[in-house]
């Protein structure tokens, strides 16, 4: 602080009360220009957890690929269920390898990653104390949430695409470009297979909106980033467990995870979209509800952190 000469002379001219903007704002301030998308994107990009999560999305398919190299020749005939069949087929081509990579990560890894991006975004700012400075800029609260949400969703999508892209690239290089095979359907030509794969990714993205919504809601209600991320993952797991209890009957249809594996229907011929549509309705309804609550809560709450 030594010898600083801030003050009178320079200050008065440059920022002075000369030409305030609308609503008495400082010169150059526009509410709609605050916290630009790119600025928030860079804020998040510089974080270690973002880099690690995205890096892992690239790494996972390669780890799986290496693991398959150790496969001993003897097949113990574990022909039970869709998982086993997809696992058996995983090495039959790049498309099948991609499908397998998605299958193994859809139920938990992607959930964690999405919860991380969406649950951490506001809560971490609150825990650092930087949230109140953003609000004092002032970044309008709704704008803050919108930018944060859009960036978090963009990173989630990026993670999904990175996973699928790496798997497709690595799988194709290793196993070749061959038709998509699955137990529920006949072979699909590679072109058609890519379309199906994209549809699967699209549906997964929609289903994960529930996690995104839940994590985001928790993120604005707590100052603990870990609580928001962990809470969303925990509730997701709870819903998955409840979904296993058939005694709940029709109630299970209302669980957010009930339709989480409906994307398997996109692999059959003809494509079964019934559960996909129902799953999309469920996911979008939940996500909208959670986000609406998040906005409602955050635009009213006292920021005390």
């Amino acid at each position, binding site marked *: 602080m030594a010898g600083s000469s801030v003050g009178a002379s320079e200050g008065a001219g440059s920022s002075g009360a000369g030409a305030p903007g609308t609503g008495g*704002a400082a010169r150059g301030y526009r509410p709609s220009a605050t916290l630009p998308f790119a600025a928030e994107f860079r804020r998040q990009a510089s974080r270690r957890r973002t880099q690690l999560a995205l890096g892992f999305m690239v790494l996972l398919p390669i780890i799986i690929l290496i693991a398959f190299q150790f496969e001993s020749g003897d097949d113990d005939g574990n022909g039970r269920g869709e998982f086993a069949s997809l696992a058996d087929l995983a090495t039959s081509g790049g498309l099948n390898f991609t499908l397998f990579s998605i299958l193994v990560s859809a139920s938990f890894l992607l959930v964690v990653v999405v919860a991380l991006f969406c649950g951490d975004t506001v809560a971490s700012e609150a825990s650092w104390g930087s949230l109140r400075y953003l609000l004092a800029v002032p970044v309008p609260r709704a704008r803050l949430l919108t930018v944060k949400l859009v960036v978090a969703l963009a990173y989630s999508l990026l993670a999904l695409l990175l996973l699928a892209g790496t798997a497709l690239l690595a799988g194709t290089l290793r196993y070749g470009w061959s038709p998509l095979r699955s137990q529920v359907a006949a072979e699909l030509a590679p072109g058609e297979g890519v379309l199906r794969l994209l549809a699967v990714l699209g549906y997964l993205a929609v289903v994960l909106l529930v996690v995104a919504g839940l994590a985001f809601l928790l993120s604005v209600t707590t100052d603990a980033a870990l609580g928001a991320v962990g809470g969303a993952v925990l509730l997701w797991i709870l819903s998955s467990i409840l979904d296993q209890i058939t005694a*709940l009957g029709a109630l299970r249809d209302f669980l957010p995870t009930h339709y989480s594996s409906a994307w398997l229907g996109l692999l059959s011929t003809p494509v079964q979209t019934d559960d996909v549509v129902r799953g999309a309705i469920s996911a*979008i309804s939940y996500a909208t509800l959670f986000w609406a609550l998040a906005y409602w809560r955050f635009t009213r709450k006292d920021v005390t952190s």
Partner: protein
Amino acid sequence: MRSPLSGARVRRVLSTRRRIVAAAVVVVLLAAALVWLARPGGDGFRTEFAPLTVRSGPAGDEPVDLDTTLYLPGDASAANRVPAVLLAHGFGGTKDSVRADAEDLVARGYAVLTWTARGFGRSGGQIHLDNPDYEIRDAQRLLDWLADRPEIRTDSAGDPRVGVVGGSYGGGLALLLAAQDQRVDAIVPMITWNDLSRAFLPESTGRPATDGVFKKGWAGIFFGGGGNAGSGPAGIGGTSAALPEGAPASAGPPSPGPGAGPGSGPGRGPTGAADPSCGRFAADVCAAYLRIATTGRADQAAVDLLRRSSPAGVLDRIKAPTLLVQGEADTLFPLAEADANARGIAATGTPVRIAWFTGGHDGGAGPQTDSDRVKFLTAQWLDHYVKGAGAAPGNDFTFSRIAGFDALDRGLVATGYRTTDYPGLAGTARREVAVTGPAQPVANPPNGNPAAISSVPFAGALGSLLDGVAGDIPGQHARFESAPLDEAVDVVGAPTVRIRAASPTGEAVLFVKLYDVDPNGAAALPDGLVAPVRLTGLPKSVDAATPVEVTMPGIVRRIEAGHRLRVVVATSDQAYTTPAEPTVYTVAAGDGPLTLPTVAGEPIPTTAAVWRWVLAGLLAAIVVGLVVVVLLARRRHRRQDRSVHPEYAGVPLVVRDLRKEYADGFVAVSHVDFEVHPGQVMGLLGPNGAGKTTTLRVLMGLTQPTAGEIYVFGHRLVPGSPVLSRIGALVEGPGFLPHLSGLENLKAYWRATGRPAADAHFEQALEIAGLGDSVHRKTRKYSHGMRQRLAIAQAMLGLPELLVLDEPTDGLDPPQIAEMRRVLQRYATGGRAVLVSSHLLAEVEQTCTHAVVVNKGRIVASGPVEEIVGESPSVLFEVSDPEAARTVLDRLDGVRVLPDGDGQLVVDTNGTARSEVVAELVRAGIGVDRVVPRRRLEDAFLALVGENSRGSGDR
């Protein structure tokens, strides 16, 4: 002092309690909702259990006890008579196997009479296989009984308004009863037979049942199941996949196991010990079975007995509108049975409607969509023809096709189709496919062992999976294959094929099957259906053989493009009895192509289509909702009071009557009111918890005030007000992104403001921070003081006109504090102002031009620092004997000795002249060394906030 404290506490406790209550209410409501959703079906009906004794037999004089249950809707009475449904169970079942269907129907307003057929369960009598003199007459007596019930609607005396519903054995009863008793108003026979002799002794080239091939698998199961009271294919559609007791669990041998032979069951029947070889079967039925099963051939007497129990001969007498439901996955009663019934009944002009579904005796209830459709059709049929409600159901034909596996629960998924007219088994169009192959020798294994497997009775949904299991024994079958199809074919109906065969004995029993072979070579036998044929008069050489046409069982299947069709002619099948002698036949393709009937069905819209609309509607609603919310927000924004308070236009900060009360009832700020003018360095002074930080939080738009206003340059300040951009703030400590360096943090912050980078004045800010090269280190490695300085620099970015600093010197060392004073004093020039909150009194005294003293959420003093200090009436005395001085001073009127920590004597003279006080002390012999007016703010502060320095947070 005590009462507000306890009051606040009481409020807090109350508030917590209120929250607990609210949470409890929510939990209870949720639980109630769950229970309501998961509750078992409503109990809007009553049941009457009654053993009825009816008289039947050829002469109508043989009494038999029937175990019955009558389900009555809750509101049925003599005044409110309801139509009735006679609900019959399947073979081997009891009245309890149709309970679920009965409850469905009673919920629709029907009285439902279920009973256990004679020979089963607790009912008496013997099994006569739906004999018109026995089972059918029993049912007629039940109609009589219904007609006598006061709650049952009648058409005339003794003629109840009644429909008959049943599957399999119950379906046969429905048809035979409608033929025998014209009081029946409508029937819904499901998965049942037209000609029992043909069902058990089929022959697919059109030969009579005496030449049929014995379907030993099914026959054995029924004969075994008739001995005890298991639950067979029963209920509506006979569709429960439950196994009869004694039936093989799944892929076991299709004949009764050793423990399930006739009469080996529990024998709960009241008839007591019976013939061990016949169980509860009537002697004539039993004898016929034994004869057929022994030889594998039926004599005319046996065929006559079976035909007596068949609707085939009496269809022209059926006048009750008939809904025929038949299963596609049914190797016992294939689609041809319903087809024959439909043609026979419709020939007399009786309304007939046909529906096929993907279940059956092998396929069970089929997928959910199918059982829903069957239930809907049944209800619609009964409602119109029995209850007299609803429009007349059309006679359009509905069927369904397995579309694949469900992705979620691994069940089957079926697609429903409909056409306006029933096309029969020949379809509306046909597609001819050439199948070729050389003449092939095929061996008939002795005693039919080993045998090919085509279907496993009672395999339930597993039956469809047998598509892949079905195996032919090498050497025992001939194959004829087509080229790959260039386009998909939707087969609906019974394909036909022509074959030629030669046999050294002149006779051959063959099984003709049609496989769907995919490009990878996997062959599927649709629903495990085979066409058994018995050929006689065959030549020894195949060249001399004449082609015969084989009509295969009706199927509904889409053969995809690229798939091949394979006709297999086998010599053995586990489900049938084949000649015991080993023989080698020769089989060749016939002179014509394979003919596939097709039906262009229109898909039945399912709920899935509705869901698609729901999804579209949901998305549209979200978009509309978003637009509305945004518009409302804009409108509110436009309507916001933007006027500039003229009085305060030039004043950086005006706080008016501010009050903040938290949700838990704690009042952090009860009344704060002050102004900061240009050029001022305003100190906000108060003990911890006095409400300083809360005031600043409200000022930064972080917290909503309960009451009061804040004006910044005349603009009303609310959370997010644009005018906040003219305030630079440090509130409640620094807040930085730990993974960024100091400089990056400042830049990231400035980027978030969206203002031009040139306006930021980074250099000056960094100069204030004085961090040197540390500015490039990550902030997580900063010391507390470094962070504090960086935060002050951040607050000064853009040189805001009002600088708000909360405890700015926290963590700074003395030289830095001194420097900070100078910085702040210089800053507050040129129209700018600074608001500093602090509990360090010296700091405010030295830094600020003005001060506001807050205590317990209220302002206790405000004004220029000198004035506040000047108000202090206290004086510090240094005396030789403080104890004595104290007693002297206590005597003086109005003079008060203030408590002081370090033994000094601080005195509030309270108007009494200091000279007088000194004189008084001297008079008392006390030496006075020094008299210092306490002009320090600390005293003023203590004087203003009172002796008790405990923070207002403790109130």
